[in-house]
C-alpha cells in the first residue's frame, strides 16, 4: 500500500523534476500533468529527463487556467490514470509542481498508513466560511461563468451583474450540497474511484464546468457523498493573500516552514535554493515527527493581509496615502489640544507636564514658529520648527508629529492667533481631545502694553477666528472629544474641568487627585477691560458674562490659595 502523487505542473519544470525524483525515490508512484501552455519542446525534454524513473506516468494535457474547469479535468484524468496504473495505491495526494515536501515522505506514508480510511480534504459549506474573495460565495454555484476572470474581467463582471439583475439561477444537481475548500487534497482510492465512476458524473461535470473556481469545490463537494471519514483540512500548507493568490515561500522562511509541521508546502519560489536543499534530503537530515499544525505560521501571513488592506493607522507614506474617510485614523495615537489654558494660567504648560507626564508643547501652530516643548528647534523625526515648512502642509506636520512620538502622549496649545488650517482635520480626528476656554485669548491682550485701538482691532480679529473654530468643533462632523467652557464659566470652578481632562489623559498617574494647581493670571480689572472694549463698539462675547463692578478675584488683593481636589 502506498501513496500516489498526482502532480500538476506548469512552470519551473526543473524544480518539478527535482521534487518528482524526491517522491519517486521514496517509492511513491507519480502521475504528472503538464499544462498545455508548456511548449512542446520543453515538455518533451521534461518527459525525457524523468524517463529513468520506473513509477512515473504522464497524463493527457489540459489547459489549466486559474479559476476554470481545466484544473479539475486535469486532476480527474491524472487521478484516473493513477488508480488504473498503480493498483497498490491507497491514498492519492494532489500536489503541484511548486509544492515542496517538508517532512520525509516516509512519515507521510506512515501517517496515511495509520489512517487508511480517512480523506484529507478541506470542505466547508459556503454559508459558514468567509474565505471567498470578491463577494462570490454562494453565487459561485448558482450563476454561470463562461468568461475568464483573468483575461476578460469586464465581460466577467458584466455577465455576473446581468444574471443578478435578471434573477437567473442555476439548479444545483440533485443530492449534492456545495462545499468549498483548498484545492490540494489527499483522498483514498475508495472515495476517489467512487467520484470518478459515479453514474451521474456527466451531470456533475457539466454542472461544475460552469461553476466559478471549480477546483475549490468539485472534489470538496463530491467527497462528501462517498467518504467514510472526512478530515476537513489540507495536508498542504498554503497561505492566501487578500486577492486569493497563494503566498510564496522564500529562503528566509526556512525556520518558519520547519515549525509548520505540515507535510507539504505551497508555493515555493523556484529560485529558493536553500529551501529545496534543506527539504529535499533524506530522513537522516530531516526534522522531527509531530502532528501537522499549520496554525503556527498563520499569524505572519494574516498580518501581511492586514497591512495590505488596513495599513498602519495614522501613517502617511509613499505607498499609503488614503483618501478622506478611509484613513482608519487620521493620526496614530491620542493627543490633547488646549485652547485658552496657557493664556489663563501662567504656568500651565509646565504644570500639565508634571501632572500628566506627557509631552507638552506650546503653540505648535503659532505664526512665528512651532513652539516645541523645552524650546527645541527640531522635534522627533527631525521635524523642523520652521513656520513656513509647517504651514506648507500643516496636516502632514501634525500626522508626522503624532506618528514620530508613538508611545508618548502629546499635548499642545492652540489659539486663534495660530494657523487655523488644521481645524477641520483635528475636529474630525477621534484621537483628538480638545479643551477650549473660549475668550481666554483676551487675557494676553489685557496684560499687553499696546495702544487700545490696536488691542481693539486684534480682539475683534481673534474673536472672529475663534467663533469660526467653535462652529467647527460643534458641527456634526466632529469626532474629537470636545469640551468648551466660556472663560467666565471656567474660572468659577477651574479644578473640576482640569481634573476631568487630566483623568482622561492618564488616569493611572493621578489616582490621588491633583497635588498642585496651576497659577491663574491676575484678572483684577479684566471686567473693566471688557467693558472698555464694549464702549469702543467691539462686543466681546466668547468669554461669557463678566460683571464690571465686581472682579472675579474677590476680595481684591487677597491672593487665591492653592487647594486640593479629591
Amino acid at each position, binding site marked *: 500500500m502506498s501513496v500516489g502523487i498526482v502532480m500538476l505542473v506548469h512552470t519551473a519544470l526543473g524544480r518539478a523534476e527535482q521534487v518528482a525524483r524526491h517522491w519517486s525515490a521514496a517509492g511513491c508512484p507519480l502521475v504528472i500533468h503538464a499544462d498545455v501552455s508548456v511548449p512542446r519542446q520543453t515538455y518533451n525534454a521534461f518527459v525525457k529527463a524523468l524517463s529513468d524513473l520506473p513509477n512515473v506516468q504522464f497524463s493527457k494535457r489540459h489547459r489549466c487556467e486559474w479559476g476554470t474547469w481545466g484544473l479539475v479535468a486535469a486532476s480527474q484524468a491524472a487521478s484516473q490514470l493513477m488508480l488504473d496504473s498503480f493498483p497498490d495505491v491507497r491514498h492519492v495526494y494532489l500536489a503541484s509542481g511548486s509544492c515542496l515536501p517538508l517532512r520525509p515522505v516516509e512519515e507521510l506514508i506512515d501517517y496515511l498508513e495509520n489512517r487508511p480510511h480517512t480523506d484529507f480534504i478541506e470542505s466547508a459549506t459556503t454559508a459558514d466560511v468567509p474565505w471567498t474573495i470578491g463577494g462570490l460565495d454562494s453565487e459561485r454555484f448558482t450563476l454561470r461563468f463562461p468568461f475568464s476572470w483573468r483575461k476578460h474581467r469586464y465581460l466577467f463582471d458584466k455577465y455576473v451583474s446581468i444574471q443578478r439583475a435578471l434573477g437567473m439561477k442555476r439548479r444545483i444537481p440533485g443530492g449534492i450540497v456545495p462545499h468549498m475548500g483548498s484545492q490540494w487534497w489527499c483522498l483514498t482510492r475508495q472515495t476517489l474511484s467512487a467520484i470518478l465512476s459515479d453514474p451521474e458524473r456527466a451531470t456533475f461535470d457539466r454542472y461544475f464546468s460552469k461553476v466559478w473556481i471549480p477546483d475549490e469545490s468539485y472534489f470538496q463537494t463530491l467527497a462528501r457523498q462517498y467518504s467514510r471519514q472526512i478530515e476537513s483540512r489540507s495536508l498542504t500548507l498554503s*497561505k492566501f*493573500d*487578500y*486577492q486569493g*493568490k497563494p*503566498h*510564496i515561500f*522564500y*529562503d*528566509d522562511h526556512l525556520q518558519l516552514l520547519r515549525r509548520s509541521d505540515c507535510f507539504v508546502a505551497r508555493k515555493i*519560489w523556484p*529560485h529558493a535554493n536553500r529551501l529545496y536543499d534543506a527539504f529535499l534530503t533524506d530522513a537522516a537530515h530531516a526534522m522531527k515527527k509531530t502532528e501537522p499544525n499549520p496554525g503556527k505560521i498563520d499569524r*505572519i*501571513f494574516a*498580518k*501581511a*493581509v492586514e*497591512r*495590505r*488592506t*488596513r*495599513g*498602519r493607522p495614522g*501613517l*502617511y*507614506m*509613499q*505607498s*499609503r*496615502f*488614503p*483618501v478622506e474617510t*478611509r*484613513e*482608519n485614523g487620521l493620526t496614530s495615537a491620542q493627543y490633547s489640544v488646549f485652547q485658552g489654558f496657557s493664556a489663563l494660567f501662567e504656568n500651565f504648560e509646565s504644570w500639565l507636564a508634571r501632572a500628566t507626564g506627557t509631552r507638552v508643547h506650546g503653540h505648535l501652530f503659532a505664526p512665528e514658529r512651532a513652539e516645541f516643548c523645552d524650546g*527645541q528647534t*527640531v*522635534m*522627533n*523625526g*527631525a*521635524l*523642523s520648527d*520652521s513656520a*513656513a*515648512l509647517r504651514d*506648507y*502642509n500643516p496636516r*502632514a*506636520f501634525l500626522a*508626522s508629529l503624532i*506618528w*514620530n512620538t508613538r508611545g508618548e502622549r502629546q499635548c499642545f496649545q492652540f489659539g486663534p492667533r495660530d494657523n487655523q488650517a488644521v481645524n477641520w482635520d483635528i475636529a474630525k480626528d477621534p484621537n483628538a481631545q480638545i479643551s477650549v476656554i473660549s475668550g481666554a485669548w483676551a487675557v494676553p491682550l489685557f496684560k499687553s502694553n499696546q495702544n487700545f485701538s490696536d488691542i481693539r482691532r486684534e480682539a475683534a480679529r481673534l474673536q472672529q477666528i475663534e467663533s469660526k473654530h467653535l462652529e467647527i468643533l460643534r458641527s456634526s462632523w466632529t469626532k474629537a472629544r470636545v469640551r468648551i467652557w466660556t472663560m467666565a464659566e471656567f474660572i468659577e470652578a477651574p479644578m473640576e474641568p482640569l481634573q476631568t481632562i487630566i483623568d482622561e489623559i492618564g488616569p493611572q498617574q493621578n489616582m490621588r487627585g491633583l497635588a498642585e494647581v496651576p497659577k491663574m493670571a491676575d484678572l483684577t480689572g479684566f471686567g473693566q477691560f471688557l467693558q472698555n472694549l464694549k464702549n469702543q463698539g467691539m462686543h466681546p462675547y466668547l468669554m461669557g458674562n463678566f460683571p464690571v463692578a465686581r472682579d472675579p478675584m474677590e476680595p481684591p488683593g487677597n491672593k487665591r490659595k492653592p487647594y486640593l481636589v479629591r
Partner: protein
Amino acid sequence: MSIVQSYRMRLQRKHAKARAFRKHFSLRPVVDRTGHIKPGQILLFSTLRDEHIRLPYFLNYYRDMGVDHFLIVDNDSTDGSGDYLADQPDVSLWHTRASYKRARYGVDWLNWLQASYGHGHWTLVVDPDELFVYPFCDTRPIRALTDWLDGSNVRSFGAMLLDMYPKGRLDAVPYRRGQDPIEIASWFDPGNYMISKNRKYGNLWIQGGPRARVFFPESPKKAPALNKIPLVKWNRRNTYISSTHMLLPRGLNLVYDEWGGETASGVLLHAKFLDTFTHKAKEEMQRKQHYRASLEYKAYVENLRETPDLWCKWSEKYINWRQLEILGLMSKGNWA
C-alpha cells in the same frame, strides 16, 4: 477622466518618445554588450558624469542584488569613468557630449535606451549615488521581488529618495573608492516628509527630509521632490516624463494605496552628501545643467558655507530595511 484628457496624455507621451528619438543621435555607443542580454533579465539604466570614485561600490551593490546588465550613458566624464565602465563585462556604455539639461536631465537618453533594450524586462533606473533598498533585500534577490510583482500583476514599484548624510561636516571623512557610502553618510531624517497628490499624473509628490529642513525652511515649495518609481516592467510604450518621479501611461504612477492599505514599497538611499559633494556643488552651479538652473545647488553652497552639518539631534542612524519599514518610510505591503 475625459477622452480629451486621456488623448492629451497620449500626445504628451508621444511627444516624450519623439524627444527621446531626437536626442538619441547624440549618443555614441562605446561598448555595446546588449547582445548578452537574455529574456527576463533585470536591467539597470543610469546616466552619470564624473562618478568614477563611486562606481566600484555601485556596480557591486547592484550585481549582488541580482541585476544582470548595466546600460549607462556617460555624459562626457573627464575622470576616467568611461574607461572604467568600458572594461566591465556586464556594462554597455554610451557616450555623449550633449547637454544634460536639454536632454531633460538625461531622461530623454534613458527613455531611448529603455525603449530599445528594456522592452519586456524589469528595468531599474538609478543614479550612481542611489542605493535601492526593498523589503527583504537582505535575504531575497531582486528577482524574488520582480517575480512577485509579476505574479501580482503589478508593473511598477515605488521607492522614495531618502537623503543620507554624515554627522558633522560633509567633508570631515573622505570617501574611499569601493567603500560603502552609507558607512559615512549613515544618518537620515526619519519623519518629516510631506506628501500631496499630483492630480494630473496620479503620482504622489513627496518633499521633506534634510534638504527641506536645512536648505529650504523658508521656501518649502522649492524643496526637491523625493518620490521615485525606479523599478518598472518596461514596455516600449512607457516613458519617464520627469526624472524617475513620474511616468506615462499614468497607471504606472499608482504605486500607493488610497483605501487605507499599504502597498509594498522600497527606498533609494541617496548618498549624495559625501565629501565629494562640496566640489560637485560648486561645479554644477557653474554648469547650470541641473533642474531650475541648479537652484538647488545654489542653496546648498550658500547654506553649507555657514552650517556644513545636516545632522540634528533627531537624526536616525541607518541599520537596515526593517528599521525603515518600522519607521513607516517603506512597507512590505502584502509581501511576507
